[in-house]
């Protein structure tokens, strides 16, 4: 009951018509001068707090909600939203990374080869994204978000994927491990397979992370879990840690290009971190399927808004 009430409150805040309408209107007007300057960072703080809760409950990173929603409904230019989105995703990864590494849930050996490919491609993606016309990037962002929704609906997760035999690459690199599965009180040995196709997919993941400033947890986890065969917990933790490397490389490109406005970045970081903090606590009593559909709905809404904005089409909201 508490979960449902919390989720409804969160959704109501996220979809608050007057708030979004005011934001939308001001974004259309020159300079957004309908509101006093401090209203924007304040709204951003509240909204990112809500996003932080939803992201933690929905098992997605903050960036994938942040970029489409903020670029769709706030007056900030997409260049700054992408820069802030990467820093939001990066901060979440930096905060979670040390704990996951120490608990041996994130694997440095699994992450290093993947990170090398993804971070290189994220730099290329960031450069391409900044060179392309804004409308094109906004439309492609919307299409990508809708693709993520399809992936979230279609992809099944496997707690302990069946990996009959480690492949040659992972064996040579010693990518295997053991972790304690507290829920069943056992140590789980794990190894991976299909390393080459898995690494290949990270080329595209890195490109998209850099181009749209999304983070990439939504793609990391299915590839690590379903393609490479890492257990779900190892995949989630390694993915989160991985973002600290992938997003770093792209974040530097945006930072060096001047795509960072502290008045946007700091409230966003604080909001998303506080929201995640609360979200993790709600997660204990939350119904995962209900929250998952809530996030899917929010992404559908944001993806559609991004496409219509990119194509200069009217949006129903």
């Amino acid at each position: 009951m508490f979960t449902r009430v919390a989720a409804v409150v969160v959704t109501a805040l996220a979809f608050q018509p007057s708030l979004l309408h005011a934001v939308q209107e001001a974004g259309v007007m020159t300079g957004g001068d309908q509101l006093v300057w401090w209203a924007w960072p304040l709204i951003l703080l509240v909204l990112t707090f809500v996003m932080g809760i939803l992201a933690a409950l929905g098992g997605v990173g903050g960036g994938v909600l942040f970029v489409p929603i903020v670029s769709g409904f706030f007056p900030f230019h997409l260049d700054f939203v992408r820069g802030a989105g990467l820093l939001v995703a990066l901060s979440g990864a930096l905060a979670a990374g040390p704990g996951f590494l120490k608990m041996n849930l994130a694997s440095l050996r699994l992450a290093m080869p993947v990170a090398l490919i993804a971070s290189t491609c994220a730099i290329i993606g960031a450069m391409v994204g900044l060179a392309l016309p804004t409308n094109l990037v906004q439309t492609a962002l919307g299409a990508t978000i809708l693709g993520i929704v399809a992936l979230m609906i279609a992809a099944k997760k496997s707690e302990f994927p069946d990996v009959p035999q480690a492949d040659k690459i992972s064996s040579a690199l010693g990518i295997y491990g053991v972790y304690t599965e507290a829920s069943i009180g056992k140590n789980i040995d794990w190894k991976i397979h299909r390393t080459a196709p898995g690494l290949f997919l990270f080329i595209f993941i890195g490109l998209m992370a850099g181009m749209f400033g999304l983070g990439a947890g939504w793609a990391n986890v299915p590839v690590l879990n379903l393609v490479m065969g890492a257990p779900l917990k190892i995949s989630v933790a390694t993915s989160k840690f991985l973002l600290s490397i992938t997003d770093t490389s792209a974040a530097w490109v945006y930072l060096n290009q001047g795509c960072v406005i502290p008045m946007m970045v700091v409230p966003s970081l604080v909001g998303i971190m506080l929201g995640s903090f609360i979200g993790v606590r709600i997660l204990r009593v939350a119904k995962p399927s209900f929250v998952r559909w809530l996030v899917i709905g929010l992404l559908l809404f944001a993806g559609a808004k991004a496409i219509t904005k990119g194509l200069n089409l009217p949006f129903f909201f």
Partner: protein
Amino acid sequence: MTDDIKTPEANEEQILYAKILEVGMYIGLMILLVTFVLYMTGIMAPAVPIELLPNYWVLPVHDYLETINHEYLHRDHVVTGWGWLAVLGKGDFVNFLGIAVLSGVTIVCYVGILPTLLRKKQTAYLLMALAEVIILVLAASGILTAGH
């Protein structure tokens, strides 16, 4: 699956990486919050008046940089790359310090584990770590540029 006898520990380089990452993250976060307070309270005056920011954040980054340089900074070139270091005395640009620390801590982590990888003769991972350092330093250097 094996029965729980002892909680498995992460390897040496992973623990070292985690420790450096943790310290760097806290330092970066602390700097970011302190500098933002200095900015918001006006203790450090910003280059761009905060009440006028809504006029500028709607612009594409290139136009934004040109405009704030023309109207407030009056420098020979727009502030890109590490140019913010030259205007670190301004309340808005001092925030870049924390952001740079947060963005740079991964490089320090990789450099930090190089000696361990070398000692353990983990040649493949040593080369990967070196390559990652080069890539991240290249990204951080500002050599890689893009624009509309």
